[in-house]
Structures are given as C-alpha cells and as structure tokens.
C-alpha cells in the first residue's frame, strides 16, 4: 500500500453539546500529489472538515496525520499548509506582491529569496505584470489566481481550497477549473478541494469524497463514483439517475471488474439484464440507470424494449431531455440532438438499455423508494 500524504482518522466535530456532529468519524487517505474533491450538499460538513485539517478549528475527536506525523493539535501557523478561501481573503491593504510574499515573510525568508519566489509564483499564475496592483483592482478570476499563488509560494505540505470557484460566473468558472487543475498538476501539490458542484468535482479531481450528513458516502475516482455509486444518495447527487426497484432473479455470469451479470425483475416492466457486486441474487435492490444510457427507440425493435409515451421534452442545447411514461412511472432519458429524428410530445417510445449500464446499488433500498 502506498504511504499516504494525509490520513484522517475518525475525525469528528460537534459544534455544541446538544447538536448532531457536523463531521462524524470521518476517515480518508490521500495520496501524494492527488487532488481530492470533498463533494456534498450544503451543510454536509465539507468546510468543517477542511478547517480542521487546516487547524482553524479543533476536532472534537479523531486525528489528522500528515507525512506520518500527527498534527491534530499543532497550531495553525505551524502546519505549513496553504489555503484558498471561497472569498479569496486577499489582504485588502497590501498589494499583490505583498500578499503573495506574506507567508514567506512569516517564515523569515531573506528579502532577495522572497522576491525571487514571489516573482516565480506570480509567473506561474501568469500575473507577473500585476505585482503592484491592489486586490480591489483585480477581476474575480485574477484575485483567485493571486490567492492560489499566495498559498502555493510557501510550498505547502497540503493545499486546501474551499469552494474557490463558487463566486465566479459560468464561463470564468470553467476557465479557472482548467487553470487550477493544470497548476496543481505542475506543482504536484497534494490538494483538498471543497465543492458542492458535481461537474467541478468530476472534471478536476483524482479522487472524490462524496459527503452527506457528516459522513463520507463514497470515496473513489470520478469514474467510480459516477458509474458505480455505492448509495442512492451518491447516484442521485452525481448526475441524474433513474431508479427502479428490482428483484434480483438470477446470476447470469461474471462481468468486468469482478462484477456479476444478473437477471432482474422490475415490477410491472418485465425482466432485464443488470450488473452488480457479487452475492445479490435473491435480494431486492435498486437499479440505477443514467438518462443518457437509456436508448429511446421509435419502433418496437429489441424484444425487451419497454413501450412508453413521450410526456415531456426539454431542450437544453447540447441535449434533449425527455420524460417517457412507462406503466406507473416516468423515466428520464437524454438524447443528443444530432441523433437523427427528434421525438415529439405524445409519440410512442421504446426504452431499452445495455445490461452493463444498469447497475444494482450495493445498498438495500429504502422501503419508500419507488
């Protein structure tokens, strides 16, 4: 096993005695050089976790280990981490250069060395020409890069980013994503990145920790969490999903990556192929199918296609989202607008999918789930 850069062990934070813990026995191992996204809905404890790692907040229990050394109780100014705040938190009374140099000053780096490192950090974020500006004279994106430079110039053991992109507009956000990712890859700085935006996490992260209610629901690569969600929450939070309650009728053979091919029975719709972890036969599970993995045919082609009626169409430029009514439920499907003839409301539609696109959640379904 690879030696982790950062280990978080049973980290817990309870803000006040009576309250539920904001972070509840959280465990995580982060490899050197990785960018890990903490992803989850508002209030799930992402910021709390990050602040404990930074040392801005004492954990109620648990420990934080960096490079094999426990730092749970090291004061914040001794941890040598770099952090970029959501609001950037540039010092408004210092110019760009002074902002970036602040951390080096605190480390009593010599003047000339300071200058050199500040200059190279500014070059890295391509803002060398703005060294003398005041923060308020910069655009949002530029401020963001300065904050990044300020965090990186001290060569932090860990780089912590708290929703650094949520203040930006859509276009700039996309640019900054690419930028942060490429700077991170150049510096190989191990990074924790808080976000509540799925796309951001999928796009940028090496690993994603999907959090919910103070717990990590799943920790894995973007593809893993997207394609093989461990819980209904994860499936739902990361992209859209159709859920179907299904009884696993029989094993049909093994699929890739140690998964098993099953035959499942969906109430009212019939029997279909699906994949899932071993040992599910006989149980009732939830089947997850992403809307764009649903094939929408206009003719009754495949034998196991489900007949339905197009109930809703919405057009979002790159794709057409359709709601197809089958039996007592509506399934969402997504079509590329280039895929031939466009359907219209009320058209008959035939839904089908590949077995490996229908995934059985390891989690047992709630009784109320449809």
């Amino acid at each position, binding site marked *: 096993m690879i030696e982790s850069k950062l280990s978080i062990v049973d980290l817990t934070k309870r*803000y006040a005695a009576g309250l539920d813990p904001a972070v509840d026995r959280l465990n995580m191992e982060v490899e050197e050089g990785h960018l890990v996204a903490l992803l989850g809905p508002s209030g799930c404890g992402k*910021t*709390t976790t990050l*602040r404990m790692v930074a040392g*801005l907040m*004492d954990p109620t229990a648990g420990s934080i280990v960096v490079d094999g050394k426990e730092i749970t109780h090291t004061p914040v100014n001794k941890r040598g981490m770099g952090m970029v705040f959501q*609001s950037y938190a540039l010092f408004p009374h210092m110019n760009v250069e002074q902002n970036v140099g602040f951390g080096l000053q605190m480390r009593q780096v010599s003047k000339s060395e300071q200058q050199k490192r500040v200059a190279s950090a500014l070059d890295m974020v391509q803002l060398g020409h703005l060294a003398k500006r005041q923060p308020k004279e910069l655009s949002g994106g530029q401020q963001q890069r300065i904050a990044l430079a300020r965090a990186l110039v001290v060569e932090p053991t860990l780089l912590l980013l708290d929703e650094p992109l949520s203040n930006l507009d859509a276009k700039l956000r996309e640019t900054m994503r690419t930028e942060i990712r490429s700077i991170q890859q150049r510096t190989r700085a191990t990074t924790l990145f808080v976000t509540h935006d799925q796309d951001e996490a999928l796009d940028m992260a090496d690993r994603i920790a999907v959090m919910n209610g103070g717990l990590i629901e799943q920790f894995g690569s973007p593809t893993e969490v997207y394609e093989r969600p461990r819980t209904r929450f994860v499936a739902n939070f990361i992209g859209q999903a159709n859920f179907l309650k299904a009884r696993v009728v029989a094993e049909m053979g093994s699929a890739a990556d140690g998964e098993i091919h099953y035959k499942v029975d969906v109430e009212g719709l019939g029997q279909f192929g699906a994949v899932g972890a071993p040992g599910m036969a006989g149980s009732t599970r939830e089947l997850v199918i992403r809307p764009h993995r649903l094939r929408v045919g206009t003719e009754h082609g495949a034998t196991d296609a489900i007949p339905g009626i197009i109930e809703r169409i919405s057009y979002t430029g790159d794709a057409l989202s359709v709601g197809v009514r089958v039996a007592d439920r509506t399934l969402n499907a997504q079509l590329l607008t280039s895929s031939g003839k466009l359907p219209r409301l009320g058209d008959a539609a035939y839904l089908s999918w590949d077995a490996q696109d229908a995934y059985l959640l390891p989690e047992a379904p709630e009784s109320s789930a449809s």
Partner: protein
Amino acid sequence: MTTLKEPLQRPRLGAAEGELEQATTKRNRRTYLALLLPGLLGLVVSFVFPLAYMVRMSFNKGAPDGVIEETFTLDTYIQPLTDPYYWRVTLDTFQMGVTVGVLCVIVSYPVALFLARSTSKWRGLLIAIAIAPLLTSAVVRTYGWMVILGTNGLVNSTLADWGLIDTPLKLTNNMTGVTIGLVEIFMPYAILAMISGFGRLSPQLEEAAGSLGASKFKVFTRVTLPLSLPGILTAFLLVFVLSISTFITPRLLGGGSVQVLATEIYDQTTGLLNWPFAAALSVILLVLFGLIIAVYQRLTKKIGG
C-alpha cells in the same frame, strides 16, 4: 439599478462558517479577558461607580444650604413621590418627551425617507449636512433659536414686516419655544435612527405594490409606512429619552416656566444645594427611563419583528 441586486440583508461574513473562536480553551479565555478587561474597568470607574454613588447619595438626608447628613432614609423619595407638584413635573416631563418625540418623528421622517432612497451622488453630502448639526453643541443651536423665536427675532419681525401680526407671538420662554428647539436639536438623531431602521424597506417592495395596482397613496400607507415603523419607533424612543434628560434647552428657552425633571435636578444641585434630593430625582428619572425602555422594546419587538 444596482440596488436591486443587493440582498435585503447583508449576511454576517465569516460567522456562518464557524469562524468565531470558542472561548472554551484556557488560552482563549485568557485572551478575551485580557482584551475586555481594560474597557470594562474604564466603564466601571467612569460609569458604574458614579451611578452607584449617586444611588447611595439619594438615601442621605439633605438639609438646606448644602449640608448633607449621612444616613439611610427614604425621605428623599417620599417627598417627591407624595408631592403633587413633582407628580406634575414628572407628568410634564413625560408629556414634553412625547410631544417632542412625535413632532420630531414627523419632521424627520420625510428627510430620512428621502435620504434612504436617494441614489444621487449628493447623498453622502446630504447625509453629512443632516447630521452636521449633531456635532455642533446644543448650546449653540439653542442660542440660534433664541434669535429666531424672540419677541424681536426672525419670525416675529418677518411676520410683522409682512403685516401679518400686530403684537409679537410668544414663541420663546415657554413650552412652545422649548419644543421647537428640542425638535430641531434631536432631528439628526431621529434621521439617523430611522435610516438604519428602514432595513426592510426597499424600493422594490414599493414597486411590487405598484405593479399589483396600488396607487401612490396606497403604496405609502400599505407598504412604506408599515415597513418604516421599526425605524420610526426607534427614532421616537431615542428622541424621547434624549429630550426628557436634557436641561440646557429648557433652561435657555423655557424662561423659567418650563419645569421638568432635568431642570429640577439642576436647580436642586446648583441652586439649592440639595444633593440627596437631586440624587433621588435622578434615580426616579432612571427608573422611569428603564420602565419606558423596557415596555417600548417589548412593543417594538412585537411590531418590528
């Protein structure tokens, strides 16, 4: 209309993220105590001690001509509380406070509304002008009113010149003069209190009412007025409090016939040298104050929400 985009209430930056230090650890407790202590000490010396000493003094016995007998008696309280004269003075004080408060609110409201809404680049200057008088001592402004309201003052001589009056109006040396003076003197306070109390009032709400068919008058009575009520109430309380505790203006403009608790306290101290009695009157004024503020705050909470 950039104001449209401003959220109605500015969120407290940082606090929501749990930035506040929990003063539970020893080190933190030491820090905040060290920070607080000098200020607390200063206030105890300059505020708590004098008040406490005054309360103690109010239980002494005052003989004529300034002799104070150290004892513990309730006489100083029994006298004002049983004497109808002091009841009248208290009532007059109260009445003056209410009158000044109401009038001050009425004349300040349009200005405050104007300033709160104005988007003009002169707004800063207009606000500065509205509160500049605040920073000029009340003595000077009272003096100005003496010139304006006197028998041969600006008002009377102008009215006489226009032939509107034969005999000068009696505008000074009575409650009228004191009221006019106080209303003006406390206007800046009222304006400031209102502007900051207009938090929930936004042009957008008025526009919303307009778009729902409300006429200008309806917009005012149904939206603007109810929403500025908290500001109005705060301003009223402030002016009330200030006007019943002032004595310079009643002295200078009252011509000796305006007797309120504050002038009574002043007379008792400097004219008759009855310190314990003055102290007792002060305590009574304080209690009155406390009661009114308590009642009022309950009221405001109900209305303001």
